[in-house]
């Protein structure tokens, strides 16, 4: 509360008092009182009025500052009427009433939007599950009638599947609820299934795949890791060069298992590296013809953060290495012996 503004607001009180003082002075002097007596009454009056104004000012200031602090500490500020004490003054109570009304309409709006979002998310998830039925049917149709033509369709179907999965995980990652379950997972199995998910795309791009000894067990959600690997393999295919290679390996240290996926593709410019996990970031590679959405790695990072997996990218002129670092805490190590 600013003091200047407070004084301005109290101008009426001061004016009324001054007029009163003037009227009294005239009356007292006219009825033959001494000038000193009038001055004394004036000084006492002035002291009383100044003390009143300053005491009110400090009390109000303390009260309002506390309210301000409360509002600032509150995460959802529109809920302030719920925690503040109901004011006693008539005009303040009106403002309080208005705040209550604003709060209510805000809550209603938030509720409606949350509901809308939930419905939208559910619809997206349902749509994705529905579109998977025709994808499965097409896949089986192609597998049962193999020819160079159906091989191409199978590769495109793998692309479609990637995009639907991306949408599904995006819809899920936007919500706070836990949609994963951590259990003992064989990294080898996950890598093989991720390769199987990209079989026709990999074959089409003549990718040479090498898998180093990766017999490692980690505690994580296999579906999520498979999705992350799919995105990484998809990138390796998209940004490949002549005679592409893809190399999987793991390093095990005391408290972590690191799965590295290296390719010999076009790599990522040093200037782009720090930003590749940002939402919608496409970088130089994305701008030069390859249709990049800037979603894949962003989602990978988000999912990794939720699962507690460290995700890093390394690229020096040519080729990219993505490393997934799985934490092995004391408990896990003890269980494994």
């Amino acid at each position, binding site marked *: 509360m600013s003091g200047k503004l407070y004084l301005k607001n109290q101008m009426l009180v001061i004016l009324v008092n001054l007029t009163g003082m003037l009227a009294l002075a005239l009356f007292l002097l006219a009825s033959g009182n001494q000038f000193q007596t009038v001055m004394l009454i004036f000084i006492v009056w002035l002291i009383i009025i100044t003390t009143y104004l300053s005491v009110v000012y400090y009390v109000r200031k303390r009260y309002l500052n506390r309210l301000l602090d409360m509002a600032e500490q509150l995460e959802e500020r529109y809920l302030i009427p719920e925690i503040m004490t109901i004011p006693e003054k008539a005009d303040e109570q009106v403002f309080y009433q208005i705040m209550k009304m604003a709060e209510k309409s805000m809550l209603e709006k938030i509720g409606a939007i949350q509901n809308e979002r939930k419905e939208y998310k559910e619809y997206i*998830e349902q749509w994705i*599950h*529905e579109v*998977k*039925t*025709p*994808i*499965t*049917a097409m*896949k*089986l*149709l192609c*597998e*049962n009638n*193999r020819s*160079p033509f159906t*091989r191409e369709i199978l590769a495109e*179907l793998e692309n479609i*599947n990637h995009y639907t999965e991306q949408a599904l995980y995006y819809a899920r990652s936007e919500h706070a609820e836990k*949609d*994963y*379950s951590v259990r003992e997972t064989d990294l080898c199995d996950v890598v*093989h*299934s991720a*390769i*199987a*998910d990209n*079989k026709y795309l*990999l*074959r089409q791009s*003549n990718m*040479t*795949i*090498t*898998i180093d000894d990766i017999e490692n067990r980690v505690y994580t959600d296999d*579906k999520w890791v498979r999705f992350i690997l799919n995105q990484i393999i998809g990138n390796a295919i998209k940004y490949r060069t002549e005679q592409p290679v893809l190399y999987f390996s793991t390093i095990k240290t005391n408290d972590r298992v690191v799965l590295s996926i290296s390719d010999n593709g076009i790599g990522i410019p040093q200037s782009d590296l720090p930003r590749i996990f940002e939402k919608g970031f496409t970088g130089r590679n994305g701008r030069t013809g390859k249709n990049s959405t800037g979603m894949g790695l962003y989602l990978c990072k988000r999912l990794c953060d939720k699962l507690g997996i460290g995700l890093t990218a390394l690229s020096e002129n040519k080729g990219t290495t993505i490393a997934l670092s799985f934490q092995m805490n004391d408990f896990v190590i003890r269980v494994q012996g």
Partner: protein
Amino acid sequence: MRSLRCEEGYQGGVFIKEKILIVEDDFTIQAQLKTFLSGNGYEVFAITDFSQIIQQVKMFVPHLVILDIKLPGSNGFEICSEIRTFSDIPIVFVTSSNTDMDELNSIMLGGDAFITKPYNTAILLAKIAALLKRAYPSRQVESCTWNGVTLHPASGVIEYREQKAELTKNEMKILYYLFKNAGKICSRNDIVDFLWDNQLYVDDNALSVNVTRIRDKLNKIGLTDFIKTKHRQGYTL
């Protein structure tokens, strides 16, 4: 006389194909899955009348059930718990929704595997084979014979007139595929696909190298021209 004998699922000397029941309401998937599994040596029956699933299960007596979760008028979970009241056969849940709740439910109700659509056919086949092997262990005697040459996939050995040669994993799988399709021409692409399905990621060049090595090994045990090259088409036994 040419003859192929792949000894799978022998029981008391009588050859029995393993029976798989498909409970899936999408007719294209149903038909294509039936074709696919039949092509892989299973006897397949698909349910078309979804009002009497249980009766049909009891009638057909399958060795394994492939069960969709979303079904008209009922759901896979109910069917699963009903089947579990009278049978222990392996049940594979197939669904397009991959939420943890569904997976947990399927395990709680006695499902043996949970596969999400669009499934990888190789993974589906591997799961089915593994479940059947676990449920019916005595059935697994597998060896293939063609023109007097016998392949033992389990030990990775090929045998001809008492002479044996050891094979590497790649060579084994190539020969296995050729034996399975003996008499037919196998395209290079199909062979590589099959190897990839078995987690052996070889390319076209490596296939040629492997076939040359197999021919060398076969020559040493007195087999010449066992694998024939069909120009621009592939290989055949």
